[in-house]
């Protein structure tokens, strides 16, 4: 009898500890703003000698997963024409929108943009900017369209902290997009 009472007490104590520990994990769900994303990549082509800007974008406003990308433009260029190419990266999942281009400029010695047209005759790219170590960056440059044709332009943002040497090799991709290209 005495033992039974002891056991009952122990059981009560156990149940009490069990329920005082309860917590609603739903109360602690928060939007995380420290998580950096690139949701939008825009290629801005300015025809040489003019002020005509044509922009082509990739947009996936909620990042990977969730909804599919909302925009993936075909780059349309004039044959045998020279363009100034500026690239803009945004994180549109945040309010206000986070401009990643500025952060890349600030840490330009850790980043390299790589433009790879296929076929190679589609377009010729020349870097127009340099970081403090005299390595190219690729946020601005010149793109010269070749003869009429179609193909792809691979745009890579290589993240190369402490390893940048001017070649695409080191680091890993932060952006890797194949834009369709039409040269008319």
């Amino acid at each position, binding site marked *: 009898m005495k033992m039974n009472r002891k056991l009952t007490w122990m059981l009560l104590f156990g149940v009490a500890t069990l329920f005082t520990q309860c917590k609603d994990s739903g109360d602690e769900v928060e939007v*995380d703003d420290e*998580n950096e994303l690139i949701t939008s990549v825009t290629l801005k082509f300015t025809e040489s000698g003019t002020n005509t800007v044509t922009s082509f974008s990739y947009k996936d406003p909620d990042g*990977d997963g969730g909804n599919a990308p909302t925009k993936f433009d075909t780059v349309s260029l004039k044959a045998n024409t020279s363009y100034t190419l500026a690239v803009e990266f945004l994180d549109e999942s945040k309010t206000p929108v986070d401009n990643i281009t500025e952060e890349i400029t600030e840490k330009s010695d850790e980043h390299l943009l790589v433009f790879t047209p296929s076929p190679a005759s589609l377009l010729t790219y020349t870097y127009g900017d340099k970081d403090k170590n005299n390595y190219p960056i690729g946020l601005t440059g010149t793109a010269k369209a070749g003869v009429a044709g179609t193909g792809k332009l691979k745009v890579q943002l290589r993240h190369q902290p402490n390893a940048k040497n001017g070649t695409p090799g080191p680091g890993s991709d932060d952006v890797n997009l194949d834009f369709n290209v039409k040269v008319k």
Partner: protein
Amino acid sequence: MKKYFFLILSLAVISLGHAQNPTCACFIRGIVKDQHSGQPVVGATVLLIGKNTGVFTDDKGRYEIRNLCPGTYQLEARIVGYNAYKQTIDLTAGHEENFNLEEQEVHLKDVEITAHRTDAPSSQPLTTLSGNDLEQTRGQALGESLKGITGVTTMQTGSSISKPVIHGLHSNRVLIMNNGVRQEGQQWGSEHAPEIDPFVATRMSVIKGAAGVRYGSDAIGGVILVEPEELPFNKPLSGEVNLVGFSNGRQGVASSTLQGGVKGLSGFGWRAQGTIKRGGNIRTPNYFLDNTGISEKNFSIGAGYRKKGFGIDLFYSRFDTKIGIFSGSHIGSVTDLLNVINNGEPFVKSGFSYKIGRPNQNVTHDLLKAETHYHFKDGNRLQWTIAQQINNRNEYDLHVPRNDSIASLNHPELTFKLHTLTNDVIWDHKPIAGKISGQIGVSTLYQYNLMTGRPLIPNFNQFNIGIFWIERYVKNDWEFEAGARYDYRTLSTHRIVSRKKVSNDFTFSNGSGTIGATRNFSPNLSARLNAGTAWRAPNVSELFSDGVHHGAAAFEKGDSTLHPEKALNTIASVKYASEKLTIEIGGYYNYIKDFIYLKPQPDPILTVRGAFPYFKYTQTDASFKGIDISGAWQFVKNLTITSKLSYLRAYDKRNDSYLVMIPANRLDNQLKYELPELGKWHNLYFSAGNLWVAHQKRVPPASDFLPPPAAYSLWNIQAGGTIHISEKQQLEVGISVTNLFNTVYRDYMNRFRYYSDDIGRNASLRIKWKFGA
């Protein structure tokens, strides 16, 4: 009538033996006690192996075997619900000068047997690692230490993260019982190793096959029991110091234990234990792997009290590890992965360093447990265990955020905090007619998970209640058991979708059953057959994953309509054990209905890092069938050959295809030479062995970036022995070299096989100093 005849016959044989050999008047007697409670065990069978003699313990747990000739005997005690106990008894000492039948001089050995209680189903194969076998694994991670058991392999992420795989199943399909409490961490992750310090345990056992009735959900592939020694009640101060050094990674491990009773206070016992581990970059045969160091600091304390039938144990342990993740395994896109694969070796070069930079994991696991039991005088027993676990996992990516103000916070990119409370009440009813024993139990689990950082899995609250009932019946050479269980689970998840909170509620319920039989044909030969079921509710990552899994370069998507998977496992084994030869052959067929897996989808998913192969969590029916064979043969005095074969075939029944990530078949051979005495040395041994792992040919076509690696063969050598410094102090020394010839290889189950070779030669030195009792 038959019975009488048998009785008369056996009496005749004994008296005959007596008449022929008048020296046979030795006897063995003793008492069988429960190691945990110290209470006598009634109705245990005590056998002399190879002699066909056996007795039962009486109501005070006593046994006596008379009329033995001088000699060496193997004594075995078997009790339903306990591990078998074996001891060699020497009845030869001094018999020549003393022997005289007229004077009734007897040679007597008083053997107290303390049986270790196990809740494992007795008809399922249970392999235990203890003593010297366990010592040889000291310093290794939990998963690594269990690799020597047939049918058990590991799934690895590099060399420092390894998860145990039983019969091809792992993660949420293998349950780990740490000191009687189900281990709850983030098991779903392939790079999340069990948060347990193996030095806490003096025995580690593996139950192969579904054991869902006794242990609840997740016990689909098997259960791993990690158990410390019983507390040293009323015993003098004792302890041990272990030092282990490994050449690869220049890793050092130090662990020590101090324990004893309390003088003047009867019934108390305590133990304190701590481990420190530090290692640097791992070396493959040709190059170092950058950032593969490890730093670990663990400790545990326990105390307990026993009085008559009452007992209480308190236990606290903390596991704290920081593991560097090979920086060359970081990829941003499929292109990055293909580039590393084509290169054949990592782009990131490194020398040796102890530094642990990014990426890394920082994990702590706290366990607080209280267990109390009471043996009623009539034989009933009630046990209640309550435990709290707090698992904190922080994962740091290779790259710090670009934004300096965020980067300066140095927050982990992923944080998981999992709190778990478990409650188990188990009632062992008193044996019915000395033949039927059983237990009824209620287990509850309450847990909540908080996650911050890059969205990966939702926050959740989970509650589970399970009720089970198992009965065992022993008659002559037969042992039967049957059991049933019912589980009910609720799960509420909370996550952010498009900056808004979305909550979902789930309920899962399931019935499980087990039925099995064991037949002891002779003291040498026994057979077991068990059919059991187990279930597992889909975990949150299977329900809600939605993003790129960078380790696998795959886009993985969950499915919130998944339902629980159920396993029906049939396992049969035959064991023959004699002094010189031991053979165990086991076969299993595990059929898993609604097996949850990642099914490749026809179209890739486009992300800003390019297109990734798309996989969706889907259910199928899978079969896992295989054979485990192990044998040890002492073919010449002191020379033993041990062979272990693990053979497994897994199949996706619904799609008529193979499954991915199934361990390749393997054969392990060891030749061991033992010297019981050599000068100051005791239990000296030298061994050499080979592990051959086959090429995994059974994979779905075009399912992987890199086909499974070729077969490989690794050689190893070991030597060791014990020196008795004094009566109460001894020193155990062991040396070993694994991957002796520095063979270049990659293993299919190592997720870093895309990036680098596996670990090269590793020499180790172990020293253990034991003092006190």
